[in-house]
């Protein structure tokens, strides 16, 4: 990993990365919890994942240890897979209830 980037990353103290990614993560969580539009929920999930990616990168830079970045790629991969599945399910849902509102689907309860 090229030294320059690391130093560039290390310009900003770790705490900032922490806070930032926590913020992003929280936004993602909030979005997932409070929004009812499934597509937005998917995006917020992505947001959660990516905030973690950011965090990992920062850590890896500070630990000067590449494995975390490898992990980041894995995460991206997984996220992609999830989204595909998610969209498929979304399509099915649209077909079933003709809506993308999360709470349309609530026949199973109790």
């Amino acid at each position: 990993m090229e030294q320059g980037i690391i130093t560039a990353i290390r310009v900003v103290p770790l705490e900032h990365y922490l806070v930032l990614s926590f913020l992003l993560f929280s936004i993602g969580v909030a979005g997932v919890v409070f929004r009812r539009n499934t597509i937005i929920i998917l995006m917020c999930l992505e947001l959660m994942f990516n905030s973690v990616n950011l965090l990992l990168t920062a850590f890896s830079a500070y630990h000067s240890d590449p494995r975390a970045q490898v992990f980041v790629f894995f995460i991206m991969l997984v996220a992609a897979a999830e989204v595909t599945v998610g969209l498929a399910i979304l399509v099915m849902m649209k077909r079933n209830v003709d809506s993308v509102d999360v709470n349309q689907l609530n026949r199973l309860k109790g």
Partner: protein
Amino acid sequence: MSALVLISVLGVVLLYLGLFGNRGLLAPVGIVGLLAAFVFFAADWQLENALFAGLVQFDTYARSFSMVLIVVTVLLFLFGIDYYAKVRENVAEQYALMLFSLIGGLLITSFSNLIVLFLGIEILSIPLYILAGGKRDSFRSGEAAFKYFVQGSFASGFLLLGLALLYGSTASFDLPAIEAHAASIGTGTDMLFLLGLFFTIAGVAFKVAAVPFHFWSPDVYEGAPTLVTAFMSTVVKTAAFAAFYRFIGHMQLPEAVHTMLILMTVCTLFLGNIVALRQTQFKRLMAYSSIAHTGFLLLAFLGFDARTPDVLFYYLGTYALATVGLFIVLTLAKRAAKGDEHIHIFRGLFRSNPWLAIVTMLLLLSLAGIPLTAGFVAKYRVFVLSLANGYLLTTAFAVVMALVGIYYYVIVIREAFTPGERGLQLVVAPLNWLVISLCGIAVVALGVMPGLLRM
């Protein structure tokens, strides 16, 4: 290694078989392949081989759980032959997805690196999202898939966060390193580490459906196709618990996390049992009962000592056996009842299919934990463990909850043995008979000679 590769290839093979439309071969091939994998595991029993540069560690623990996973999958495939007999399309995919999911399970039972843990969980989950939606034309199935997906990815988000934080505080993904770090902390505090631990546990707890991460399970269990439900409540649950224990089993946890686990145990026991009391849909009942069992397993977690893995292994193995059998019976009854899942469909089973009724009774008694069934020994060992580690009140609470549990199982038995009424005539395919009776016999045999099932 060989086994993992074999199973992955097997999955692909099945897909191709499906492509060329000879559905008759699917299950047989799958079963043969799985048995082969089983043999591979059995072959190199003792030796500890690390795979993928030590990301995966196939020790006795991992191997025994893997073998159980495979056996259960085989049983489910056997059942699948009859289950998918009517279905026209996408059968191959269903089998294949189960296999892929199984691989995920194998990975998380054997991980020694958190990356693998994450990947494994995802490999385990993503196929399940699809499987849950397996019945394309069924609304409920779709809903199940959707809920599972959303909540699942939500949880994996937290899991990731936890992993990241752990990495942040320990600068490593390797389990040993993390354990070392945990030990080094001792009584001191490391916020990052604590949070990381917390979120990771939360992420895993979601998979084992521990309160408060259980909300998906009743809906998904009810909505998903029965075979998939069976798969989830046996293979997935077993794998997840194996992973859970592998993760925290050897770690010196901070007191705080301990407190949280106790809390989680109590809540899970309470909610699972209490709510199950009010369930009339059998699958939903099984969902809550599985939450309840999660509670008992968590109780076993509390007292970490040398016996714990063995106890978990025994509990999960026997639980899986009983569950598989019951889900098969349910499917048959459901078929006869034109898709009804209310426990009334078992009414008068004893009059119409006495032997089936008796086996069902055995399986239910095992879940309830009545002596001379495996379930009793399992519960007994859990209590021994937790009491030996001094969780007096928690155990007492668990005992009371066990009583509650007995109630709702007995209610089902009562349905089956309600006199005077002739129930639905269930048609049992020979293969199903094979599986069911295997489960029944195993449950009793393991109850009489518990020594047979140990890692």
